[in-house]
């Protein structure tokens, strides 16, 4: 597996490289004057501190905010080491590279170094007149290249937290920062684009579209993100990329099969390939092995780990299974709607 990964990412730039492409596209988009977040939204996230009372509108200096405004939303920032280049470009291919990467990501936890940061997130559900608080006050930071596991019992709000992190749902209170930009109050269209470009999601029940073949399922995010014309013009490159990804997850023999004809493990592999096709920065996994037997689940976890190591892909996984959570770099526990470090 590692050799495969190494081979894939050692290819010349002429072949499809999702992450690079997406990033440059987003930068171009902002330059064209797409909706920019407000001054409050662009303000840098506070250091992860227990008392983040002023999280909504942290006072920033005049110079700070102007500097922020001229910075494109997702432009790599020079002051952040490791952001200047796409993640997998930094790393030397080969198994020996991974310990270094881990060491690097753990070495200097600068306050604003979190790739994905939640500050005081709260979410409650309303049933009739009864308000059920699910997340009370979640402060969580995920560093670049980190494999974070969130464990918690069923009903502890793990999935809700993941949905909030993936901007699928809006928090009742608190804020969410991605690469230092506030994202929870972005306009719907921007959040859609964010989900498409920057987040990959996988689910316990795979959630592949039953009408489409494996290959088409993997291509779906690209079809969503691109206009018809864009897609058709580059469909060969996209198709090749999708085939490469499917090869990477070990499904190259199942391109034309419908999800119905795949096993659970194969479906989850296809879902992972789909999550990766746009070259996301963060992979959000919701109990990815919850529906699989132990061996298949381990294989999926192996795949996630190798992606994390080889591509420096940031992964946030929620699970109730401690044995599975052990595989991650870091593990946090969600208890009573709050995060406890383990």
């Amino acid at each position, binding site marked *: 597996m590692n050799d495969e990964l190494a081979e894939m990412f050692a290819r010349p730039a002429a072949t499809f490289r999702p992450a690079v492409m997406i990033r440059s596209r987003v930068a171009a988009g902002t330059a064209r004057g797409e909706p920019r977040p407000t001054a409050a939204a662009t303000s840098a996230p506070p250091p992860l501190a227990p008392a983040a009372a002023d999280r909504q509108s942290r006072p920033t200096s005049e110079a700070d905010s102007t500097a922020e405004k001229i910075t494109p939303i997702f432009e790599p920032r020079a002051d952040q080491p490791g952001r200047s280049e796409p993640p997998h470009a930094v790393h030397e291919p080969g198994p020996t590279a991974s310990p270094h990467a881990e060491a690097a990501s753990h070495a200097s936890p600068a306050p604003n170094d979190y790739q994905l940061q939640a500050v005081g997130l709260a979410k409650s559900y309303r049933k009739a007149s009864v308000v059920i608080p699910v997340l009370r006050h979640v402060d969580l930071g995920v560093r670049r290249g980190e494999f974070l596991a969130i464990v918690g019992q069923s009903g502890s709000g793990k999935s809700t937290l993941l949905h909030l992190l*993936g901007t699928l749902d809006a928090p009742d209170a608190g804020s969410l920062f991605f690469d230092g930009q506030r994202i929870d109050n972005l306009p719907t269209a921007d959040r859609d*684009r964010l989900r498409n470009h920057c987040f990959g999601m996988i689910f316990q029940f795979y959630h592949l579209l039953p009408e489409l073949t494996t290959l088409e399922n993997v291509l779906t995010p690209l079809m969503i993100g691109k206009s018809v014309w864009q897609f058709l013009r580059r469909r060969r490159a996209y198709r090749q990329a999708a085939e490469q990804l499917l090869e990477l997850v070990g499904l190259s023999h199942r391109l034309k099969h419908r999800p119905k004809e795949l096993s659970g493990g194969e479906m989850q592999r296809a879902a992972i390939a789909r999550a990766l096709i746009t070259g996301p920065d963060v992979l959000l996994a919701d109990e990815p092995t919850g529906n699989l037997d132990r061996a298949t689940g381990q294989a999926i976890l192996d795949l996630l780990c190798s992606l994390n190591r080889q591509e420096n892909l940031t992964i946030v996984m929620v699970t109730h299974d401690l044995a599975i959570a052990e595989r991650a770099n870091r593990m946090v526990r969600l208890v009573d709607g709050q995060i406890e470090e383990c």
Partner: protein
Amino acid sequence: MYKLLLCWRYLRTRYIALASIISVMLGVATMIVVNSVMSGFATEMQNRIHGILSDLVLEVRSLDGMADAEWHMEQIRRVAGEAIAGMTPTVVVPAMLSFRHADQWITRQVQLIGIDEKTQSQVSDFGKYLQHPENRRAMSFQLREGGYDTRDHQGGPEAKERPQMKRAGWEHRRAMAEIQAFNRLMAQRAAASVPSESLRSDGTDSSDSAGLVDPFAAVQRPQQEPVFDPATQQHTGAVLGIVMASFRRPTGEDSFLILPGDDVKLTFPTAGTPPKIATDDFTVVDFYECKMAEYDSSFVFVPIRKLQELRGMIDPATGMGMFKSIQIKLKPGFDGDAIRDRLAEAFPRNLYEVQTWRDRQGALLAAVQMETAILNVLLFLIIAVSGFGILAIFFMIVVEKTRDIGVLKSLGASGAGIMGIFLSYGLSLGLVGSGVGLVLGLVFVDHINDIAVVLGKITGKPVFDPSIYYFYRIPTIKDPWTITWIVFGAIAIAVLASVLPALRAALLHPVEALRYE
């Protein structure tokens, strides 16, 4: 792109949705067929009515007519001369037609029209409807030797042979005269033999008895003097509506009761108050077939001069005839209604009435239009009802696809994009439904006559009975505009029906959609 792909896949995998558009399809097909047939009938009828009637008619309200057609025509020219292409005076009077068939007198009520055979064809298609080719070229009230059409010259390839018409003309007249002469001879012999016996036994004879002189003998004799020889002479010519003289069998063949060459009696009121009864013999010289049963069964045309004489409509001092109406043909491009209004202004309304051909058949034309409109509304309601079927099935599909919608949203699809899937799905269903309906409707219209024949064979009853309609084929007109409207209307309904489910899909909350089991 995913919209198109998913829409295409849904179209190919969700056959229940295809079932929902069968009603769209049938509605479109039915509307196309009904509109084609109705407009075919309406156009055919309008053409015929217009062909029969002149563009405008100036009519005297009194049946007795008005003197001096020339002066009236002069007035008309003065008022609207630039628009007039031709005019002809006519006399119209209700009459009774009697003719002998199979040793019985058959009497019918007719509309007796006195026409000027030279100018009549200038104002209407009168000449076109006659059965003798020469008469169609130049109408004459003289009986032709023969050569009448043996099949309907307007009927097209379906027209059946009319073998009886082969002997029409002088040939038939001579044959009939011979039979009559023979019959008369036999009757005389029979009469001669019986009275002579009685005469001998009685020894008396009315004519010679007692030397009494019939005081009216002198009056009667001159009448009998010019002996009429039916084998070489004819009465005044008359053109009969063909339905009066024949009947059509269900097979479409015509059987004739009388033929050109036979004599008929016409009885009509004279002019003056109170009207008296006048009767005269006429010889049938041709048949008039305009394919409008109403006219074909009531019109009898005779020379106007003869009718004026018989009705006492000629001023003895000036020799000027009276007329009942003046038929006017307009030059192409002139608006009949406008000219009608100008003429109505020029002539006193209490004595004259001016009508266009549409006015005269307005009720019929309006009825056809009304029928078409009502049928269209009803049939469009069928399509509208099928719209609700689409709505229901779409709601089901949206519910079924709830999780997929959540997945698409988690992959970054926007609400508008999700809505697009279902709207384009509705659009493609509408396209498929109305497309198939269009083809079905057009094929049906093209083969409507074959279908009518087959249906007739299956049910044992002719669907389209030529003896009722006097068409050999069902007339159809495929109006591209009407068809376009129907097709686009159906597509619009399909799209509209999918708006609500699509909106529901677009507004689904992604988290709830993902949780949906």
